[in-house]
């Protein structure tokens, strides 16, 4: 319980930073921090494998991709962002606060009276692997197809505006 109580506010603070920071790069770095903390949360909950995967994929790939895109599309529009903020904040809160209320209500409704396990459930790697390729084999195949499509698609996107117009030498 203690790790949860320490981690939860940290995660929320980092997420708040990701939502609120004016400079896009700061926001992206806060996102990375928040995702890393979620990974630590998974470790604390006993899901080691998931935690490390979360860390590797989110911090190592997604966050890096995001900051990289921010680098490529760098623009100095923080001032505009801050200026526009109050208006968009109102609309944002109008939409998200009810959602939060509903969610919290549901949470408060569901948790009553359920017995909770205090023993750490095991997440053995071998079991995970076997389950992955037996019970969840169709899903794995689906993901595989999806990832292949993503890879090809992203490559095509990146390829389309190659260097051709600028390079008369045909290098």
């Amino acid at each position, binding site marked *: 319980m203690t790790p949860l109580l320490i981690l939860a506010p940290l995660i929320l603070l980092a997420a708040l930073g990701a939502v609120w920071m004016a400079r896009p790069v700061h926001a992206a770095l806060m996102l990375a921090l928040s995702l890393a903390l979620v990974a630590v949360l998974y470790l604390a909950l006993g899901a080691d494998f998931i935690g490390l995967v979360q860390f590797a994929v989110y911090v190592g790939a997604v966050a890096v991709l995001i900051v990289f895109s921010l680098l*490529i*599309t*760098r623009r*100095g529009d923080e001032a505009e962002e801050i200026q526009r903020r109050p208006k968009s904040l109102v609309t944002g809160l109008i939409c998200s606060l009810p959602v939060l209320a509903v969610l919290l209500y549901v949470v408060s409704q569901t948790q009553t009276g359920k017995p909770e396990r205090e023993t750490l459930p095991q997440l053995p790697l071998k079991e995970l692997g076997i389950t992955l390729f037996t019970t969840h084999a169709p899903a794995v195949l689906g993901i595989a197809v999806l990832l292949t499509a993503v890879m090809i698609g992203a490559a095509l996107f990146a390829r389309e505006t190659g*260097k051709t117009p*600028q*390079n*008369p*030498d045909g*290098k």
Partner: protein
Amino acid sequence: MISDPSIFSPAPVLEGSDDDQLLRVSLGPQHPSTHGVFRMNVVLDGETVVALKPVFGYLHRNHEKIAESVTYLSSMPYTDRLDYICPLTNNWAYANAVEKLAGIEVPERAEYMRVILGELTRLINHTAFMGFILGDMGAWGSALMYAFRERELILDLFEDLTGARMMANFMRFGGCRNDLPAGWAEKCGKLVDDYGPFLDEMEKFLVGNEILLARCQDVGQLPPATLINGGITGPMLRAAGVNYDIRKADPYGIYERFNFRIPLGEKGDVYDRIMIRFLEMRESLKILRQALDQLPEGDHVNPKAKIRGFKPPVGEAYARIEGPKGELGFHLISDGTVNPYRYRVRPPSFINLTLLEDMCLGLDLADVVIILGSIDIVLGEVDR
């Protein structure tokens, strides 16, 4: 260029509007691979060069103006400091111009000595070039150290002969300052014999290297017509397949007596420039061998040539030689006094540099560095 005031502002191209995505980088004057204090204001799109503006003059030392206010002889040590990698060819070109101006004959032996020294200088320059270009490509100095190791041997010869390793100040109007010391020609012959194996090793180190092939081929080429119009000379021009070597085209000294060939490239990219220099070194070794074998006895300087109070007749003269970097010429106008009325250098480094932007557009930042390296500039000559 001068009419554009922006070149004097501290960071002209660096200030861009926020709107566009181009990155404006000032490469130099304090940059590891600009061969001195040279600066390129580069506009990058990602890593691709969109615009490039050379900025130079950081090493300007008023060479030409100083030469007009000192005697003819006093300019000789200043020419050492033009292209300080190869001072002896600078000396030679200047001596040639003054001899043409004053009509001084050069004795046979002195001509041979000049050819030997000139070709040794070519070896020095091209050897050092191999080291520099690999350094520009990011090899951590090995090639440079090997090149300098061999260059030191030639510099030892220069020290024995001229008293200085680099700032030779050796040629005189009508010959050379002093005669070859005893045993010098034999030492030089041994060096010439040993140089072949070193070149083989260097070639093995460089030429077969796939990374080098990938980096250098098809980089920085320009059509020969553009090069000719730009006044490019030397290995850069010959790499593009233009047969223009002053030793053949407008022979000076006694080059007609030697049997050597002019290597020509095809594409004129960085790789060709490297290879042409390799082949030129081998031809230089041939010339050296012949010159050392034929070296006659006799005066090392025309005894009639005056040292003190030298006053050429009124007139003007332009003399050029095939320097290691290209056509090196001196234009002198004499008004009959001890100082030249007008003194003008045609520096190959500077003129070869003029097409830098054309060669670099559309290529990567890393290519700019090796293209600059392949032009083989020395800032002492560019800025004078």
